């Protein structure tokens, strides 16, 4: 992530910088790449995700992604403060 990304990211609010942040940056004209990572399997504790997360996380992220499109369009119209 480059320094120039910080300003647009700080000008709006996100839900833990999930998919909506990527949608928002792409709509603002930034280039987004993909880097593969490897995630170690959890060895202790309990998952923070429950059965209801299956429904409300996609819904929340979907709403935020939709709002990110609207917000990016509004930001492009508005001159930078």
């Amino acid at each position, binding site marked *: 992530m480059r320094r120039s990304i910080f300003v647009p990211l700080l000008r*709006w*609010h996100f839900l833990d910088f999930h998919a909506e942040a990527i949608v928002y940056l792409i709509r603002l004209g930034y280039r987004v790449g993909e880097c593969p990572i490897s995630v170690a399997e959890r060895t202790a504790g309990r998952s923070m995700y429950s059965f209801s997360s299956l429904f*409300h996380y996609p*819904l*929340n992220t979907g*709403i*935020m992604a939709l*709002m990110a499109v*609207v917000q990016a369009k509004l930001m492009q119209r508005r001159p930078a403060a």
Partner: protein
Amino acid sequence: MISTLAVVAIGLLFFGWVLNLVRKGSVYVGYGSALLTAIGGIICIALIPAQFLEAFVQHASGVPPRGLPVVLAAYSILLALIYVLKEVTAISKRLRTLTQQLAIELARHGSTFDAEEPVTKAQSVARISHGRSV
């Protein structure tokens, strides 16, 4: 027919309002999604043909549906909920800002805060009454 259109129009108005509140950050998206689901549910119920709805409600509860007043009451409850959730979001945002500011201040001052003993309520009252800042 007119009442159905009115219910749908009010619902869509609420829908747009809640989405805008979520966009502005005035309502947390988790609350927003619950509200949008409720509004969507009310609109769907309003669009079900009256005879089906009457048959279903009477079969399920024995209470005949009252039509428009019931839907308007549901919208009034939703309106109150939106207001409450907006305030809850504002309080949570203030708390988050306060926590962030405290963390920044602690990081700036380093160990000077840690070196001091925690100030009790009685001590802080005594300091204020003697004109000293805490």
